[in-house]
């Protein structure tokens, strides 16, 4: 084997290892977290309004939804998703998403935590954009 071939193979192996390692480490970082639980949650009745001020200074009223509620809104005209324990109405975001409509339509009616964390985990802008679509919290 010539010197150039050895160098080429070595570099190729290094690139392979680095790329796979980076992808794997990002995958590990974005593993889904367990939803936060709180002993002071008042009601478990689905869709009921409840005061969320128990653990924060935010006095806004947040509705609680089950996964079944989210699943019922699984179309382009009414698109809900749940991400990291919160429920979002992302219907209006479908046409605005920089990555295209399909990426958002794929989240309609399901738990989008894996997809969102994998694509945007740790990024401030997507998280702040998402916060604007929050309509409630998820209950199991």
């Amino acid at each position, binding site marked *: 084997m010539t010197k150039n071939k050895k160098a080429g193979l070595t570099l190729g192996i290094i690139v392979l290892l680095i790329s796979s390692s980076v992808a794997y480490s990002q995958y590990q970082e974005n593993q889904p977290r367990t939803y936060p639980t709180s002993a002071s949650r008042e009601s478990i009745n689905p869709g009921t309004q409840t005061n969320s001020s128990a653990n924060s200074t935010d006095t806004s009223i947040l509705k609680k939804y089950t996964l079944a509620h989210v699943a019922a809104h699984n179309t382009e005209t009414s698109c809900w998703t749940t991400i990291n324990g919160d429920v979002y109405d992302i219907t209006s975001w479908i046409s605005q998403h920089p990555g295209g409509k399909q990426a958002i*339509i794929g989240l309609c009616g399901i738990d989008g935590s894996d997809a969102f964390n994998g694509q945007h985990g740790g990024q401030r802008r997507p998280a702040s954009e998402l916060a604007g679509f929050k309509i409630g919290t998820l209950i199991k």
Partner: protein
Amino acid sequence: MNTLKSYIPQLPSFAPVVLRLGIAGVVIWFGTSQLLSQAMWTSFIPDWVISLTHLSATTLVFINGLFEVVAGGLVALGFCVRPLATLLFLHMIGIIASVGLSPIGIRDIGIATGLLSVALYGNDILSWKSPASTSSSV
């Protein structure tokens, strides 16, 4: 300084090597990401592919990821550079057509251009079949 100047004429010959390794690294990253977490990528599979193949979106993502890791890995190692780079370029064209002219699509056009450049150049000085050692680079 003189030693450094003596290396400058050799630099252009490493340009295609850098391009090949960089592009291969990106392809391997995407492939590995798809193999590890199919759920993240299923929304990018067009409906017509699912109905044509009768395979689930998760299976298609897995197959796509495997293809990208294998093809990208072989390109990084310098094997079958031209055929695989051509195949990956055509693959990227399909992805761009599906994603459209969004920021992701524009970025993918850049990646496709790099792959086309690698396909056109063929084997470089560090490939398994470097131009100096073979008469045919395909």
